[in-house]
C-alpha cells in the first residue's frame, strides 16, 4: 500500500490490510488494532560473531493470526446494526453513534462477513418495503390522497435508503462495488430493485397508482388545477425503479388515445370546423408543453403522435367536407391557414392507402376553385363582369395560397390547374372577353390610374390569358380591337400598347405577335407617308389647302377589314383628293392596288347652321349624306340611296344616327324611330348645340351576334386549314403512319384546343380529296399519296 494510492481514495478511510506483512511493517497508528502487525524483537539469534556488538532488530509476524470472535458479526447485527436500520425506517433517531455503526460494518467486512451482512440487510429492507406497500393496499382514500401517500412512501423510502447507505457505506464500497459478489447490487440499486419487486407485484397498488395518475392527467386536461409536483415525483419514481415504460407509458398513451378519441368525436360533431381547429391547435400545444415538463423527451414523441392521430388524422375527411369551402367562400384565410397547419401534422400518420392530407386538401381547393370559377364563366348574364370577377378571384386565391398555404408551389399549381379547367369550360367566350377587357384598359388608359397600375392590370389579364387554350380566338378579337384603336386613334397610350405587345410576345412567341406588330408598322408607315404627301409639290398644287386628307395604307391580309366591295360614291370634292393620293402613292409604290375602305373613314366637317357654325366629327358615310344637303334642303330616302350608293343596311343606320340620335342635324319625315325606304329627310335649320365641336356617334351595329360569330367562324376555318396543313406536312415526311402515331404528332404541332374527332374529320376529308389513303390490309394505317 503506497501512500499516493491512499490519498487517491475518495474517502479518507484506510484500506484494510489483507495480507500479513512478511518482513517489516511500520504502519501508522491509524490502523485499527485488530489489523495491526506485531513488531517483535528477536534476541535469541545473535546474528554473527563478527559483529557481536551489533544488535539486530528483527520483526516477525505472528505465527497464528489473531482471530476475531466467531459471534462478532451476529452480535454486531443483532445488537446494533439491525436496530439501527429499524430505527432509520421508523424515522426515529438512531440509538448508536454513526461512527460506531460504521466501525461495526467495517469489522464485519474485514472478517469476511460481508455476504451475510448483505443478505441480512436486504432481508431487512425487503421486509420494510413489503410492509410499506402493504399499508398502501388497504384503505379507500381518494385519488389525490392516495397519490400523496404513495409519493410519501417513496420519498421517505429514498431518504431512509440514503441514510442506511451512509451507515453501510463500507459494505457498499468494498463488497459490492469491488465485485465481491457479482450478483449483489449496489445498495441503492438493491433498494430500487426491492421497491420495484414489491410495487409491481402488488398489482392493486401499482394499478391504482397508474390509474390515479391518469385520472389527474385527465383532470388537468379538463382544465382543473392539479398538483403536478406529485405527478412529477411519481413519474420519476417509475423511471427510477425502471417500470416507467411498461407500467405507466403504455397505459398512459392508451388513455390519451381514448381521451382524445372521445373528445374529438364529440367536438367535431358539436362545433364548427374553425372552432374545432382552434381547439385542436391549442390541445396540441398544451400537450407538448405538458409532455416536455412532465414526461421527458421519450414520451413526448409518441404522445404527440397519438394526439395528432386522434385529433386530426381521424377527421381529415370530415374537416375538409364540413367546413372547407365555406371557409374559402368567406375568405377566412386565418382559419384556412390553421387548417393547413393542423393538417400538416396529420400527414405523418395517414393510413397507407389514403392520400396525403395536403393532397386531399389540394383536391378540395381544386374542386372549390373549379366550382366558383365555372359559375362565373358560365353565367351568361354577367359576361361583362366576367373578367373582372375572374381577376378578383385570382388575386383572392393568390393571397390565400401565399398566406394560408405558405406559398406552397403545389397549391399554386392546383389553383392554376383549376383555372385552366374552367376558363376553357366555356369555349371561346372567355378568350373573347379577356381581349375585350384588355381593349377596355388600352382605350381608357390612365384615367385616374398610374401607368404602373395599368401595367399590373394588364399583367393580371395576361395571367388569365395564359390559361386559355384557344389563344387564336384571343388573337382574332384582340386584332379587331387593336385595329379600331389604331385607326380611330382611340388608344390611350402607345407605350402601353407596345408594352402589351411585348408581353404577348414573351408569352406566346414572336410568331404570335408578328401580325400585330405589322399593324403598328403599317400605321407608322402611313404617318410618314402622309407627311411626304403633304410636302409633295405636285399633289399640293392640285389640291390647295381646303381639305386635309389622312390615309392609312394597310396591308389587307394583316388587318381584319371587311372584304365587302362597295360602290360608295364620294362627293365630287373628295374624289379629287382620293385620285391625287392614289397617283401619289402609285408613283412611290408601283404595282400595288389600293382598295378604299370607306366604311372605316371619318371626317371633320365644318357646318354652317342658321344658328351658328359647328365643327362636326362624322363618319365618312355620315359626311357623304350630309354633303348632299349642301344643294337641297329635303331629299327622299330613295334619292339618297341612289346618290351615295351606300349599302342599304349601312345607309339606314347612318340616317338613323343623323336624324334620330341625340344630335339631330337632319329631320325625318314622318317622325319615328325607324328608317323606312319611303321616308324623307330635311336639313334641320333650327339646329343648335351648346358646344362648337360635336361628335355624332355612328350607331354601332349590334356587334355581338353576327360579327362575333363571323370572327369565331374565321378562327375555326383557320384552324381547319392548320390541321390540314399539319396533317399533310407530317404525312409527306412520314409517307406511311399509323393512326395513333399521326394523332400523336399532330398534338405536338397544333397550338389550339382540338378534339380527336376534329382531326379525324380532317383526315377523312384528306382521304376524300386523295391526299391520303388507308392501307388495304390495315385500316388504321394511312399512306401519303404524292
Amino acid at each position: 500500500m503506497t501512500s499516493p494510492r491512499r490519498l487517491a481514495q475518495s474517502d479518507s478511510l484506510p484500506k484494510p490490510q489483507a495480507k500479513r506483512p512478511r518482513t517489516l511493517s511500520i504502519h501508522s497508528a491509524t490502523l485499527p488494532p485488530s489489523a495491526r502487525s506485531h513488531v517483535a524483537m528477536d534476541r535469541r539469534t545473535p546474528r554473527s560473531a563478527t559483529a557481536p556488538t551489533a544488535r539486530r532488530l528483527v520483526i516477525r509476524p505472528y505465527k497464528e493470526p489473531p482471530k476475531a470472535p466467531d459471534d462478532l458479526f451476529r452480535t454486531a447485527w443483532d445488537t446494533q446494526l439491525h436496530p439501527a436500520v429499524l430505527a432509520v425506517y421508523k424515522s426515529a433517531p438512531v440509538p448508536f453513534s454513526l461512527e460506531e455503526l460504521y466501525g461495526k460494518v467495517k469489522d464485519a467486512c474485514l472478517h469476511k462477513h460481508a455476504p451475510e451482512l448483505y443478505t441480512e440487510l436486504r432481508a431487512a429492507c425487503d421486509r420494510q418495503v413489503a410492509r410499506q406497500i402493504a399499508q398502501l393496499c388497504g384503505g379507500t382514500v381518494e385519488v389525490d390522497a392516495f397519490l400523496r401517500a404513495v409519493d410519501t412512501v417513496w420519498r421517505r423510502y429514498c431518504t431512509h435508503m440514503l441514510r442506511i447507505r451512509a451507515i453501510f457505506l463500507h459494505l457498499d464500497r468494498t463488497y459490492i462495488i469491488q465485485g465481491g459478489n457479482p450478483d449483489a447490487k449496489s445498495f441503492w440499486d438493491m433498494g430500487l430493485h426491492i421497491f420495484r419487486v414489491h410495487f409491481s407485484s402488488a398489482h392493486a397498488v401499482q394499478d391504482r397508482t397508474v390509474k390515479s395518475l391518469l385520472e389527474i392527467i385527465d383532470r388537468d386536461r379538463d382544465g382543473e388545477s392539479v398538483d403536478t409536483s406529485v405527478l412529477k415525483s411519481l413519474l420519476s419514481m417509475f423511471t427510477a425503479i425502471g417500470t416507467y415504460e411498461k407500467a405507466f407509458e403504455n397505459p398512459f398513451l392508451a388513455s390519451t388515445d381514448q381521451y382524445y378519441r372521445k373528445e374529438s368525436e364529440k367536438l367535431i360533431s358539436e362545433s364548427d370546423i374553425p372552432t374545432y381547429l382552434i381547439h385542436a391547435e391549442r390541445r396540441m400545444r398544451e400537450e407538448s408543453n405538458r409532455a416536455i415538463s412532465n414526461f421527458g423527451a421519450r414520451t413526448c414523441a409518441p404522445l404527440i403522435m397519438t394526439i395528432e392521430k386522434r385529433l386530426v388524422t381521424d377527421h381529415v375527411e370530415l374537416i375538409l367536407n364540413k367546413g372547407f369551402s365555406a371557409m374559402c367562400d368567406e375568405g377566412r384565410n386565418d382559419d384556412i391557414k390553421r387548417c393547413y397547419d393542423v393538417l400538416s401534422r396529420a400527414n405523418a400518420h395517414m393510413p397507407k392507402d389514403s392520400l396525403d392530407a395536403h393532397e386531399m386538401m389540394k383536391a378540395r381547393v381544386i374542386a372549390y376553385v373549379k366550382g366558383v370559377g365555372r359559375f362565373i364563366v358560365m353565367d351568361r348574364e354577367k359576361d361583362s363582369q366576367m373578367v373582372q370577377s375572374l381577376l378578383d378571384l385570382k388575386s383572392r386565391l393568390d393571397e390565400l395560397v401565399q398566406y394560408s398555404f405558405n406559398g406552397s408551389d403545389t397549391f399554386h399549381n392546383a389553383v392554376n390547374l383549376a383555372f385552366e379547367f374552367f376558363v376553357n369550360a366555356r369555349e371561346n367566350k372567355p378568350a373573347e372577353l379577356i381581349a375585350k377587357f384588355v381593349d377596355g384598359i388600352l382605350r381608357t388608359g390612365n384615367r385616374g390610374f398610374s401607368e404602373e397600375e395599368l401595367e399590373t392590370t394588364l399583367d393580371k389579364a395576361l395571367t388569365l390569358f395564359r390559361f386559355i387554350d384557344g389563344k387564336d380566338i384571343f388573337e382574332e378579337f384582340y386584332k379587331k380591337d387593336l385595329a379600331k384603336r389604331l385607326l380611330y386613334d382611340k388608344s390611350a397610350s402607345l407605350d402601353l400598347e407596345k408594352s402589351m405587345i411585348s408581353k404577348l410576345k414573351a408569352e406566346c412567341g414572336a410568331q404570335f405577335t408578328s401580325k400585330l406588330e405589322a399593324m403598328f408598322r403599317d400605321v407608322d408607315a402611313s404617318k410618314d407617308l402622309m407627311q411626304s404627301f403633304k410636302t409633295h409639290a405636285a399633289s399640293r398644287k392640285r389640291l390647295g389647302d381646303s381639305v386635309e386628307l389622312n390615309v392609312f395604307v394597310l396591308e389587307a391580309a394583316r388587318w381584319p377589314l371587311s372584304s365587302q366591295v362597295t360602290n360608295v360614291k364620294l362627293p365630287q370634292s373628295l374624289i379629287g383628293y382620293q385620285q391625287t393620293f392614289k397617283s401619289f402613292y402609285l408613283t412611290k409604290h408601283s404595282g400595288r392596288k389600293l382598295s378604299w375602305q370607306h366604311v372605316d373613314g371619318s371626317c371633320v366637317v365644318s357646318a354652317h347652321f342658321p344658328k351658328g357654325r359647328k365643327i362636326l366629327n362624322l363618319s365618312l358615310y355620315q359626311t357623304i349624306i350630309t354633303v348632299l344637303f349642301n344643294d337641297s334642303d329635303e331629299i327622299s330616302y330613295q334619292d339618297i340611296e341612289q346618290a351615295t350608293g351606300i349599302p342599304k343596311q349601312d345607309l339606314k343606320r347612318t340616317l338613323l344616327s343623323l336624324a334620330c340620335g341625340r344630335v339631330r342635324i337632319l329631320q325625318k319625315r314622318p317622325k319615328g324611330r325607324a328608317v323606312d325606304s319611303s321616308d324623307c329627310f330635311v336639313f334641320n335649320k333650327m339646329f343648335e348645340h351648346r358646344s362648337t365641336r360635336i361628335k355624332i356617334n355612328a350607331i354601332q351595329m349590334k356587334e355581338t351576334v353576327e360579327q362575333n360569330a363571323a370572327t369565331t367562324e374565321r378562327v375555326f376555318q383557320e384552324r381547319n386549314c392548320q390541321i390540314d396543313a399539319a396533317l399533310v406536312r407530317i404525312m409527306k415526311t412520314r409517307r406511311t403512319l399509323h393512326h395513333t402515331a399521326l394523332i400523336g404528332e399532330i398534338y405536338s404541332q397544333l397550338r389550339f384546343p382540338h378534339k380527336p374527332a376534329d382531326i379525324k374529320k380532317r383526315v377523312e376529308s384528306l382521304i376524300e380529296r386523295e391526299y391520303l389513303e388507308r392501307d388495304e390490309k390495315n385500316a388504321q394505317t394511312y399512306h401519303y399519296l404524292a
Partner: protein
Amino acid sequence: MRRNSNRLSRSQDGSRNHVNLTAIDDLFNRFKEAAEEKIEAEGMQALFEALDVDPLDITSLVFAWKLRAKTPFEFSRSEFVDGCVNLGADSLEKLKAVLPSLKESLNNDDDFRSFYMFAFDYNKPIEQRSLPIEVARQLFPLILGGRFAHIDLWIEFLEGKKHAISRDTYSLLLDFARNIDYDLKNFDEENGAWPVLLDEFVDFAKPRIAQDKDRMDE
C-alpha cells in the same frame, strides 16, 4: 375492283368454250334501247322480269357486279357479252340457272368485299365522290341485311344525317360490321382510326343496345 378480275375469269373458265356468242348478242339486242348500244332502265326491268328476278332484290345487283357494269342502271354491249361469256350462259334459261350460284359466291369474304365496293360505285352518281344519303339508306339494307347485326339501328341512325357517305366510311363500315362485337365493346373510339360517322353511330347505338339487353334480361 382490280383484285377481283382474276377471280371472276378463273371461276368461269370451264364453261366458256360452250357459249354461243351470237345467242348472247341476240339476247342483248332483245333488251337494248333502240337508239343506243346499251340496255337502260326499261330494258333492264324487262330483262329481270324475264329472269324472274325482283329488281329490288340483291340478285339484280349481283348480276350487275358480275357484268362489271360501270354506270348505274346501264349495261353496255361489251359489258353484257363479256359478262354472259364469263357466266357461261347464252340464253335466258341458262342465265336463270346460273343466278342462284352467283348469290352463293357472296359467301366468300373477299368476293363480298369486291361486290360491296362495286355497289358503292355502281349506285353513286358518276359526278360525285360520295354516296348520297338517300341512296345509302336504301342500299345498306339490301346488301348488308343479314351481315350487319345492327343494320336497323344503322339505318335509323342515318335518318338524322344529311351528309353523303364517303367511300372511306362506306368501306370501313364493312370492317365494322365484320369485326366489332355485338355489344360494341371492342370499338375503341379514342385510339381507333374509325371514321367520325362510325364514332357517332357507336355513341348512338350503345345505349340502345344496352337497353335492349336489359329488356331481354327481364
